[in-house]
């Protein structure tokens, strides 16, 4: 019988594989969106008394966080195309192109002694 990708894993790991199901992922994103809406509603209570006017704008931190994250991701795509290089660009004077020496490691698979 062929072994599946999740046959040889820990008990906690087995439970967590449920998180990889598409419908669960969809539900998690929905949950996150609902949490965002709740946090947004939180601003109705005027809990913040910021040092700057902009801070007290409705949903300021939410918009800021979303926009900042999206900006970072798109900006880095451009950056990588400019400064990205192959791993051996500086070889041999760099560790990136080398394997980590085995003597320092204890590489073992799950289930090994």
């Amino acid at each position, binding site marked *: 019988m062929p072994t599946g990708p999740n046959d040889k894993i820990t008990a906690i790991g087995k439970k967590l594989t449920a998180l990889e199901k598409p419908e669960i992922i969809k539900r998690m994103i929905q949950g996150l969106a609902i949490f965002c809406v709740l946090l947004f509603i939180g601003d109705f209570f005027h809990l913040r008394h910021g040092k700057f006017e902009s801070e007290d704008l409705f949903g300021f931190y939410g918009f800021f966080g979303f926009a900042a994250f999206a900006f970072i991701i798109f900006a880095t795509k451009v950056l990588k195309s400019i400064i990205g290089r192959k791993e051996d660009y500086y070889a041999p*004077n760099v560790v990136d192109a080398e394997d980590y020496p085995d003597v320092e490691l204890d590489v073992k698979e799950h289930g090994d002694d």
Partner: protein
Amino acid sequence: MTELLAPYFASPVYLFVLGALILPLLPKGELRALVTLIVPILSGYLIWNAAPGLHGITTLGGLEITMMRVDKLSTIFGLIFSLAAFLSGIYAWHVRDSVQQIATLLYAGTAIGAVFAGDLLSLFVYWEGTALASVFLIWARRTTGAYATGMRYLLIQIGSGVILIAGIALHYRASGSIAFDRLTGTGPESWDLGVWLIFMAFGVKCAFPLMHNWLQDSYPAATVTGTVTLSAFTTKMAVYCLARAFPGTEMLIYIGAVMTLFPIFFAEIENDLRRVLAYSLNNQLGFMVVGVGVGTELALNGTAAHAFCHILYKSLLFMSVGAVLFRTGTSKASELGGLYRTMPWTMVFCIVGAASISAFPLFSGFVSKSLILDAAAENQYPVVWAVLVFASAGVLSHSGIKIPYFAFFSHDSGKRPKEAPTHMLIAMGLTAFACIFIGVFPSSLYALLPYDVNYVPYTAGHILAQLQLLVFALLAFALLMRYGFFPAETRTINLDVDWTYRKLAPAFLGLVVAVVRTVWGELARGALISVQAGQTALERLYGPGGRLEQVQRTGAMVLWVAILLGAALAINLITVS
């Protein structure tokens, strides 16, 4: 004799030196590892119980040396350094390489010595000590790449020490003092060259923008355990020195703001997760430097608190990625993924570190970073404040999400590594516990800060603001990922400032050499041609068949001699008369 040596026993440094001396005498194994645990415990105990004031005062060549200055600022750094050394000792329990063990002891010891130094000369000695000891943690990898990287690291670290000692000498000549105290004077306009050099030396080790790249170059090149140790000391020692000597220097606010900003983008595109963490470390230092620049009691408290929390969660993140490297042989995001299946505990500890650095409420970063942000806002630096808020979202992107996501989730790499060894789990567990404990009971940390704290981090407004920032950013991540906009990790490296001295400078030097060689070659060729031409001319004159070689009659010779003698006689007559 004992009286002469007594001052040197005032600082806990001697414990580390003793430990390093005793360690090789013990049999290889647990006993040696035990020394690396006992020494930091004793050091922490001594620091905790040290009476405030100056101890270990002596004179050296007419200069007053203070080995141990105990106040709240030095104490909090001394304590966290001892704690970091202890935790990394547990993490490195399996290490049987005595070079690494001795280097770790001496490195931690010299860093602790530096924060308790009361004069610039002792500071210099410890400053260089940290450089010399720590490079062995990189060389201990014992590969060509690690050797070259270690050399680059050492050059820059020792270079910073050379700048420091030059600054100290010039400052001593100008002011007659080597006291390690506030050097700000009435602002940078009043600084003599010596003070500027000291400032620059601190800047190199603090990884100021453009001087930062040694950090990202070298830390990922160290051993699994060496990187954890490296992450704790050098840069925070520099932060301490800035807080001690340059509080309230406005320039630092802008330097710090830039430091929080640019590493975000580099971290985001970096493939090696340990280098991602090195960039992230740089970004966290930026927050601390801003705190020093603002320089108010609240801000300096923020810097000290953030350094304390940062050492813990950064160690934790390096430990978890190190454990992955230890078990799989790689820390590259492109090669990892799905490890939660078999390394669930490491995954949980990594997430605790990620939540702490991202400053989620109830985690340590939340109670320390907000001190700095509030200090910047209170002193009306709106742009800097906005940069820090942006950088906070950036921290979530590269350390909060990227590290745990690409190592433990993302696509299934097919790797099924065994869970990290028990001692690593214990080290990570203790560090994670400290991160959460500080987050839940911030007063325990606030009691250690240099100034009295009148600050409440957990207000409804503050929690709501931070959650909005982080959860909306998380939503952005989820959506970008879901719709395929999130860039995949590839086996690449990225150019940074180090390109200038690793590629540009050698290329430029090569060009200079080529130009000089060509010019020299042409000049030499020209000279050769002239010599050859001269030789041909002489040959034509004197050589066989040359004009002067032709056979002359004796009579003609006699005639020429007579003419010459006559001419000489005539000139003589003219000149005498």
